[in-house]
């Protein structure tokens, strides 16, 4: 192609680029490493992250692993080896401790790194810019408060009970159990802590259907770390002749799965932990950092305003926590519950 022809073509291309609003506003690519969105909570997280990235003018690339830390590590190596210039990374490790090497590699690229969902491990602070996500200690504490409140109101004698927790190795499960146990210390007696092999109803039922009859007459409450497991526990309790809410109090503490057990009072109450808003706030934190250029020390709990999400102009802290607003166990309470402009039904029934 000769010079005379190439000049007008280049001019047309340049004009086209400038005329395109999408490209003109593009602030770059954010790469998020997350476990597979076949898990509906993670699917919601990705939707929220996409929505916020689009709003801020970023392009979000979500790289999913099949619940496999080795695969995620390999994805990080490939991303870094590609040499792609990015506006930042969002890091949701599948196994928090095992993923520290990849986290360090991301940080060494010079791009900001926002950790989400998995509370960072002590000593890794230099490898990440900020944490933006759920606080699982708070989740456990909120569940304990819901349960203690239900004990006081229902007249059920609450003493011995059990914790059905997430699989061993899932740090969110450790943190929720710790938060719960700290909050009930001296008030309730934890008979046993039994891990499930998963997060859904089938696994919750498998465990609850075995420990309830084995401890019949002893269990007065159950904490299950999310509502999917709690709903299954309620079903197992009914099958063993116990009326949830009367003979035994069950709390999941995180709205997840079928809300009918909360709405009909079988579960003592719940709290909104929204996957959508967690993804949204992770990207917002990255956007804030890229705009403001700094991170404030300490932690902040974003306000649980029912009508509007937090402003982009707010400062970003080292730890930015998603609020966990509690929701009562009735249809009316559930219908009235909102967080950041979305209803509990939208945020929990995904």
């Amino acid at each position, binding site marked *: 192609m000769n010079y005379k022809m190439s000049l007008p073509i280049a001019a047309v291309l340049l004009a086209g680029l400038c005329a395109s609003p999408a490209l003109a506003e593009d602030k770059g690519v954010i790469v998020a490493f997350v476990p*597979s*969105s*076949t*898990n*509906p909570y*993670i*699917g919601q997280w990705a939707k929220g992250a996409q929505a916020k990235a689009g709003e801020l003018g970023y392009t979000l690339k979500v790289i999913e692993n099949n*619940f496999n830390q080795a695969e995620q590590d390999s994805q990080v190596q490939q991303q870094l080896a590609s040499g792609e210039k990015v506006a930042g990374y969002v890091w949701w490790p599948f196994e928090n401790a095992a993923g520290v090497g990849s986290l360090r590699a991301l940080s060494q690229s010079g791009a900001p790194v926002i950790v989400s969902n998995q509370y960072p491990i002590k000593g890794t602070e230099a490898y990440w810019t900020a944490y933006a996500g759920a606080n699982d200690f708070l989740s456990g504490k909120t569940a304990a408060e819901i349960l203690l409140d239900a004990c006081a109101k229902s007249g059920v004698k609450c003493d011995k009970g059990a914790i059905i927790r997430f*699989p*061993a190795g899932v740090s969110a499960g450790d943190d929720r159990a710790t938060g719960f146990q700290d909050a009930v210390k001296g008030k309730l007696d934890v008979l*046993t802590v*039994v*891990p*499930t*092999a*998963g997060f*859904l*109803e*089938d696994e919750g*039922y*498998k*465990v609850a*259907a*075995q*420990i309830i*009859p*084995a*401890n*019949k007459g002893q269990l007065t409450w159950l904490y299950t770390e999310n509502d999917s497991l709690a*709903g*299954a526990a309620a*079903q197992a309790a009914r*099958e*063993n002749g116990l009326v949830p809410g009367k003979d035994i109090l069950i709390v999941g503490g995180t709205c997840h*799965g*079928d809300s*009918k057990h909360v709405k009909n009072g079988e579960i003592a109450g719940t709290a909104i932990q929204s996957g959508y808003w967690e993804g949204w706030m992770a990207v917002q934190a990255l956007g804030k950092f890229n705009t403001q250029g700094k991170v404030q020390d300490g932690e902040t709990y974003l306000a649980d305003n029912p009508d509007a999400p937090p402003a982009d102009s707010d400062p970003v802290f080292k730890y930015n926590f998603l609020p966990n607003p509690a929701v009562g166990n009735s249809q009316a309470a559930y219908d009235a519950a909102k967080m950041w402009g979305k209803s509990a039904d939208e945020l929990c*029934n*995904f």
Partner: protein
Amino acid sequence: MSIMTDVSPSAARRRSVPRFVWVIAAIVALYLVAGVITPSFATFDNMLVIVRAASITGIVAIGMSYVTISGNLFALSAAALGAFLAVIFALAVGHLGFAAGLAATLLVAILAGMAQGLSISVVGNPIITTLAFSTVFRGLAALFSGNSIVRIDSDIALALGTGRPLGVPTQSWAFIALALVSWALIRRARLGRLLVLSGANPQTAIASGLNVRLATVVAFVALSVGVAIMAVFTVSQFSQAKADLFAGYDFDYIAAVLVGGIALRGGQGSPLQAALGAILIALLQNFMLLNGFTAGLRMTVVGGLVLLATGAFHLLQRRLR
């Protein structure tokens, strides 16, 4: 010599204890020991719990036994197919009603079984083929569900999933019925004999004019139907389906087959053994759960049981030769 075994007549005469008797003995021994150690173990209520726990795994393990007996080792796609069929069932019930949902799920299951069986006939390696199908099924489950929870609101489904005729969960009735029907099919029906002979020695079966490819397809259709039953029960019980259902369950199904004493090289065993294997594992899991074993320890013990069982049955087989 019986068509169910390839041991010599003299060995057959020497054989005094069939494999399923060993499994029953292990079940009885474990029940007695666990009952003495853990008072809450040996109760009628807990027995029902164990049978219920064994049922869901056992229904698929019975289907898996067809695959193993037909000489195709085992399938690594059962859990993912379960998630896919669960999503199909939930979507179909939501749009077309329970009966149509059930029919659609069974139809998809049969097609999925045929696709796997025919592919294995071409590729020749059941492990690689079913591993690939596993990814396909999990991906389809995610696509069809849109990575969301698919809910159903069906009284019939709820009754099916949570009903307890005569105090026994519906899943357990299905488990018992399926085990007996499958046992009769493998032992008494011509199709069962085709599976056994194809698994015992495929080359001889082909030379004898038997359709080994058909045996493979039938085995995978049987597995898929078992998976469909499990998926329908699970969705009915919890009124919802998700793409990540049953993740990690494949080992449980295979473990039940191996602990039940079904020979991995094919041509031996019966679906009843897979059912007994599922009960033995459920007993052990229940005992460990009631005694506060950690999840890691529970996995280690079950893995150890599989190693022990396969090793013991292998030694037993060598002694008989």
